[in-house]
């Protein structure tokens, strides 16, 4: 056992976990690719004529924007599940809350352009006979305040939930089921018209954001670009956090929470902190998602959605930030393709994918990829190792060794 472990440890190629050897590690290539694609796609949409073969349609741009916000959501789940072993089946709730905060702002921007021409109230309130805005809609016409709420509301919910749950040491399956109950309760609540968020219809028919027309190509491209930037930003931040000592503590909590406690770490504080951080990323993703797809409704709270996010992460490879992003992009792309090609069969394909990934790719696609590259390294290194002394090869190899820490996820005991 230890033999095989060490062999994985020694020859892992990825160095995501620690940038001691090369500052930035794998972050740079990913960010560069992401931003390059963004710039190219945006330019192709804005500058090229529609007839050009390289023209990227606004439809594609919006689709990409949606994928990227999903990727961000997956990143949020990965931070909490892959690194800290907390399987949240309710992250869709934070995503949706962020989305609703943005949605409320966008609704306020409609002003008197609603179908009833009411100067202040959104249409659904007019026909529900409401005479004034509920208090929680006040102030949401200010962009800065709305953005604050995007972070504050999901953050606060995550804080309260996390504080309650982690303090009383609800762990593992129990915690997962509780997060599911949380999002389910919110689903039911937001379905209620009395909540003042448009009930089942949710919020839609947005006009503009910060004065820019939401339907113009430039705004769409800009939103897409902002999403890409935010994804890059959250990716870099998360990477930095996971590299810091806090990241190590988090992984330590995943693998041995009791031990971490005996070392003097107040693990519940760490978990709450990370949970809130993750919820906020999800919320930002939601806030970016809404103006791009043009609607937010309670369906986003559905527990099935949250499970699906977890699946993206599992497919990509949990415990590696890049895996979460790759998983989200791939699964969603496949979904778009499959629903078009075989609408009846795609659930079979999706279901089979989940089963096969858990059975055969416990480390996800990124895990497979790094295993393959490991082999390649192994082949190459053999010849090198022969020539160099063990002392010298120790350091560079060890950076690789740590990488597999994440891949070599010892299942959080539940």
């Amino acid at each position, binding site marked *: 056992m230890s033999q095989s472990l060490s062999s994985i440890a020694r020859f892992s190629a990825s160095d995501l976990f620690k940038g001691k050897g090369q500052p930035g590690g794998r972050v740079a290539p990913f960010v560069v690719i992401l931003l390059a694609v963004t710039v190219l796609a945006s330019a192709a949409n804005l500058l090229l004529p529609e007839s050009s073969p390289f023209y990227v349609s606004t439809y594609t741009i919006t689709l990409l924007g949606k994928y990227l916000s999903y990727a961000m959501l997956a990143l949020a789940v990965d931070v909490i599940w892959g690194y800290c072993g907390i399987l949240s089946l309710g992250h869709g709730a934070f995503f949706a809350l962020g989305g609703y905060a943005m949605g409320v702002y966008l609704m306020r921007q409609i002003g008197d352009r609603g179908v009833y021409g009411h100067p202040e109230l959104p249409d659904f309130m007019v026909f529900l006979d409401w005479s004034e805005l509920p208090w929680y809609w006040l102030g949401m016409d200010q962009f800065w305040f709305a953005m604050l709420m995007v972070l504050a509301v999901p953050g606060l919910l995550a804080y309260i939930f996390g504080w309650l749950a982690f303090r009383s040491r609800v762990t593992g399956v129990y915690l997962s089921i509780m997060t599911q109950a949380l999002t389910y309760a919110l689903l039911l609540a937001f379905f209620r018209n009395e909540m003042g968020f448009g009930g089942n219809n949710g919020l839609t028919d947005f006009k503009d954001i910060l004065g820019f027309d939401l339907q113009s190509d430039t705004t769409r491209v800009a939103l897409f670009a902002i999403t890409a930037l935010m994804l890059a930003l959250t990716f870099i931040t998360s990477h930095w956090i996971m590299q810091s000592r806090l990241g190590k503590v988090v992984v330590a909590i995943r693998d041995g929470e009791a031990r971490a406690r005996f070392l003097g770490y107040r693990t519940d504080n760490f978990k709450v902190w990370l949970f809130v951080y993750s919820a906020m990323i999800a919320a930002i993703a939601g806030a970016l998602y809404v103006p791009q797809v043009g609607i937010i409704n309670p369906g986003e709270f559905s527990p099935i959605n949250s499970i699906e996010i977890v699946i993206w992460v599992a497919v990509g490879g949990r415990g590696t930030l890049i895996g979460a992003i790759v998983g989200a992009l791939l699964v969603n792309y496949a979904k778009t393709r499959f629903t078009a090609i075989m609408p009846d069969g795609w659930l079979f394909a999706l279901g089979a994918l989940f089963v096969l990934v858990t059975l055969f790719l416990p480390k996800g696609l990124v895990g497979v990829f790094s295993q393959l590259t490991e082999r390649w390294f192994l082949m190459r290194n053999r010849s090198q190792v022969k020539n160099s002394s063990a002392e010298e090869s120790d*350091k560079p190899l060890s950076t690789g060794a740590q990488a597999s820490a994440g891949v070599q996820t*010892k299942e959080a005991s539940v």
Partner: protein
Amino acid sequence: MSALENLTAEGKEMLRRDQVWPFLMPKQQAVDVSHQVILYVEGLNLSFDGFKALNDLNLYINDGELRCLIGANGAGKTTLMDVITGKTQCDSGTVYFGQNHNLLERSEPEIAELGIGRKFQKPTVFEAHTVFDNLELSLKTNKGVMPTLLARLTPTQLDRIDQVLEIIGLKEQRFLLAGALSHGQKQWLEIGMLLVSEPRLLLIDEPVAGMTAQETERTAELLTSLAGEHTVIVVEHDMEFVRSIARTVTVLHQGSVLAEGTMDQVQNNKDVIEVYLGEEA
């Protein structure tokens, strides 16, 4: 009138420059060992579903002492450690660390911060981390969330880790994943994690299980060298090992202290011979 005077008096009291406001006072008080005793365990009772794991247990450990706890399975050794470190709540009794710290009121991390370190029966190290990281995580530092996020290793800390690596003999493996270590190496690493955190009191549960004779010998050496500066409590089944390190031995039986003294005294104790050593002999 007098009310006003009182108020000004209080105000003056508040503004005294030679005192700090109570809420600004550092919470961490040094352990008060003015009576030479560092750990008081008195009248401890604990039962699981009717089974009395601890039964009116009394134990006093002197500062800088090396104490061995022995006893048959189920005698309450590990449970006692669980209670001291805050893992298990007891039914009644008191546990004081020095004169001034009631351990029963504190959580595991707080107890750890006071300077009580523990090594588990089964070696528990963070297998997904390197040896170096394991030690880094155990350093005696501020363990709040934000300080941890922004933490950087200082040269002193680096030196300290190197020093400990030297002591536990894992210098070569410093960048190896802890999961890849052998059983004995994990035991050492765990001891190293204790050392690097500079505790006042070390609770060590079966340190030599799964070690070669040579390793056992080294462990004995290490533990004896620790005593004095630190206080060490060792739970062990290996009688040879106990004999090689022990100055004072406490025998537990069915949740309470059966006998206490030097190894020879204990071995000659009638009760002990009857219930424990007798079986071995």
